[in-house]
């Protein structure tokens, strides 16, 4: 545990400087005959264990998870509200986002400006779902957070302003090619009417009333549907006591958010959806397909496959598309897992120099076909991927914020807190055969949606000539333009 100082407002610099020691007097010689060709042999490292997560329940039923970490006088609090955009009623897309922003617009006892002043007095902002602060500020931060979650006021003027801001953000997102590509992907991949196909529009936002916001809140932002995560310089007992004080009066109830639907359409056959952005110097490419649900036994193999294939700069795609061919500054793939039974999405993104769009896509698809058969993951690639995932855990959990994010993600996906023990065990014993099988089963070059936002005039002729897949020119909603 790092020692702390309680400092007064004067003399801080002197105090800190006094803690520094110098060791310049000791002279150790560098050996000019040093043999640099030998990589140092390093001692083994003790096996890593994910920090212990203590589960507690408040008297009103709120589920609480606490991780102690006394290294620094810091506490991170996260609130997980299950649901999100998938709870938006048809025709009122954007409702959940609007509710979340309205929680900051004042409470029964404080205006939004008074809230802002309270945050400023603390020195840390508090959102309805998150803050990280020094120990001294925790109680007051929780009190403010609870006020926003429990007693939002929804002033009509603020609702109108927030609505206008969301509309402006939708319009402005159309100025950035990656945002356009992602929006089109959501339109073409999931099928009409799917929860992820429906996105907020000016019209859907215009139809949302204060009553809609209030109804959503009293149904889903309630003890039944939320979980609280506390990480840092607290004990489980004191965390629960603090939460009872701030959240204890919150009346039991509300509804658990319904699960998302398993069904999603995907694309019938690999298709290039081309959105014309004259003047683009690069093609912004998103390539995606549907994958299995979070509860699939192939989860571990698919995650590890992704590390071999496209997750990192030492993965195949980056090596090939950037280092060997310099078509791009970067390419990466990732899997968006959602709570079961929803399908996952296997996604790849890259910004490709316009003149290389056809060559890069051809190469990308060749890499995909190769890993499914002719060139399956090798033993050395498996060692690389397994070690990266397992040995890398402590580096992703170095900060209180990092631990809080991981615990929140487990809560969000409804996983048990021994997930990382399973993770280490399952990935450590994965063989190349299992990962090769996952590649064959899930990487499907015949059912890809490929969205390209780029300069049509510059890239379409060579894309056609390369004969990669049928090309459909689309608008910003993924609709074919005749």
């Amino acid at each position: 545990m790092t020692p702390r100082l309680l400092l007064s407002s004067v003399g801080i610099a002197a105090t800190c400087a006094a803690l520094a020691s110098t060791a310049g007097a000791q002279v150790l010689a560098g050996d000019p005959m040093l043999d640099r060709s030998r990589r140092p042999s390093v001692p083994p490292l003790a096996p890593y264990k994910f920090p212990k997560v203590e589960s507690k329940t408040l008297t009103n039923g709120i589920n609480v998870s606490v991780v102690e970490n006394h290294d620094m006088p810091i506490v991170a609090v996260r609130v997980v509200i299950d649901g999100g955009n998938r709870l938006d009623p048809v025709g009122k897309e954007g409702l959940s986002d609007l509710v979340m922003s309205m929680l900051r617009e004042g409470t029964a006892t404080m205006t939004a400006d008074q809230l802002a002043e309270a945050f400023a007095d603390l020195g840390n902002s508090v959102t309805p779902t998150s803050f990280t602060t020094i120990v001294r500020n925790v109680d007051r931060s929780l009190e403010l957070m609870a006020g926003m979650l429990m007693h939002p006021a929804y002033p009509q003027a603020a609702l109108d302003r927030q609505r206008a801001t969301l509309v402006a953000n939708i319009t402005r997102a159309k100025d950035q090619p990656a945002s356009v590509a992602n929006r089109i992907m959501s339109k073409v991949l999931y099928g009409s009417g799917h929860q992820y196909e429906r996105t907020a529009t000016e019209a859907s936002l215009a139809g949302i009333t204060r009553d809609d916001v209030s109804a959503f809140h009293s149904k889903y932002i309630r003890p039944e549907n939320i979980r609280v995560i506390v990480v840092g310089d607290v004990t489980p007992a004191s965390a629960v006591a603090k939460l009872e004080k701030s959240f204890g009066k919150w009346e039991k109830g509300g509804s658990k958010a319904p699960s998302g639907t398993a069904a999603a359409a995907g694309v019938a056959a690999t298709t290039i959806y081309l959105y014309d952005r004259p003047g683009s110097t690069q093609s912004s490419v998103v390539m995606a397909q549907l994958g299995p649900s979070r509860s699939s036994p192939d989860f571990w193999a698919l995650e590890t496959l992704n590390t071999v294939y496209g997750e990192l700069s030492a993965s195949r795609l980056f090596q090939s598309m950037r280092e060997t061919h310099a078509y791009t500054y970067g390419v990466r793939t990732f899997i968006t897992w959602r709570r079961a039974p929803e399908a996952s999405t296997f996604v790849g993104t890259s910004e490709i120099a316009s003149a290389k769009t056809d060559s890069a896509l051809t190469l990308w698809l060749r890499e995909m076909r190769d890993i499914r058969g002719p060139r399956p993951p090798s033993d050395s690639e498996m060692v690389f991927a397994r070690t990266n995932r397992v040995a890398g855990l402590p580096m992703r959990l170095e900060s209180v914020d990092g631990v809080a994010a991981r615990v929140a993600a487990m809560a969000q996906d409804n996983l048990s807190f021994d997930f990382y023990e399973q993770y280490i065990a399952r990935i450590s014993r994965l063989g190349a055969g299992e990962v090769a099988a996952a590649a064959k089963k899930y990487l499907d070059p015949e059912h890809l949606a490929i969205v390209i936002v780029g300069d049509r005039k510059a890239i379409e002729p060579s894309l056609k000539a390369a004969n990669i897949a049928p090309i459909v020119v689309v608008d910003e909603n993924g609709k074919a333009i005749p």
Partner: protein
Amino acid sequence: MVRIPVSRSLRRATAAALAIALPALPLGAQAASAIDVPTIKYERFVLPNGLVAILNENHASPVVTVSIWYHVGSRNEVPGKTGLAHLFEHMMFEGSQNVAPGQHRTMIQSMGGAFNGNTYEDRTTYYDVVPSNELETALWMESDRMATLLTRVDQARLDAQREIVKNERRVRVDNVTFGAANEITLAQLYPPGHPYNWILFGSMADLSAASLDDVKSFFRTYYTPNNATVVISGDFKPAEARQMVHRYFGPIARGPAIARSTPPQITLSAEKRLVLEDARARLPQLRFAWPTIGNGHADLVALQILGTALTLDRTARLTKLLVYDRQLATSVNAANFDFESPNNGIFQIAVTPRPNASLTEIERVVDSVIASVKASPLSVKELQRVKSADAVTTVTGLQTGFQRTELLGQGEAFDKNPLSRFAVMTEFVKVTPADVQRVAGRYLTEGRMVLSMVPAGKLDQISKPDQPYTNVTPGRSTGAGGR
């Protein structure tokens, strides 16, 4: 790899909040005495070849961060060779005598670690975050490229990285709607030949022209032990780490002394009204910028406080008026971006207007707020808020080894004092409303840039279209406009 932030300054805008300890809050807010400040203990030593090493022991996680600071950046380039520092950074990952091309990333990632290189205007930093048992491997790799990089550098590797760096410039500048704004800002505030006149990505033409000799001479001049600082933070035994630093870096020969000069302070004699058009844009943006001051200048802290005070939250003056009361914008941000040179920085106000809002009206509101901070001091409460926010940010911003190496490395590289940021904290606490009022008057003068960014052809949307302006749209013959 080699992901570089848009500029060093943008990072500093968030991370360089400097204060820590606070006097009791006035005006009956929460009674506050002081803040728990985690100590940053370190050892510093210097090798005979001039390399500085800083060790910060912390056993909270079985992780160690190694970061190597080379005191060189785009500022050390010359016109005609812009972008060289960043291009060179890429060459550092192309292998050295005992580390094959690509092996750095494979080795670090096979440990589960993270690495990168970051080029800024005034420094270039390489870091490796690895499991603590791999500290020696990280030092071996970093020292190998400092000692032997040129044994691998060749034309083919340079040409490949040149294309990748051009792609990076496209991602971050050319393909971004209004992506030219940063390049224009530097070029308009700092005169040709001034070391902060160009962006660190350089120009495409200069990147095309960079030669193998340029790269080699850059390495021999700047990538020397006497121009480097090694910072190690995390789970290690200091005695062992000290020996490793000596073993791997000690044999590297000292390089030439580097002459450093302090660039002159710049003021603009009159307002520059500029227009940037972009055919890919649907909505306009508006930016104001002044040439100001940088690291170590006596007025810097007050100027930083001013920037934060204007847009810290919804009650801050500029945000309140533009976003809430008048609802002309969806967001606004004000900050002073400081360069290493005490004479140079940029105070910038960036406004994201609402659709259909008048840029002229926004400019009037911004000017009214600037006039108000010049005319009378901030309230004690406004000032106190900035100090509180900075204090908490500083403490919560030291959670990881990487964050600690950034703090210690920058202090050593720029100020010869690893904890210089903590020294600045004392100044921060002393700043008064009158100080802030004074720097507002001194730096937010008429000698500024006002950049209207509009969809191509929508010149009626620019701010104050009746006034003369210069159209600085790239690829367009520079033209004057206005009636």
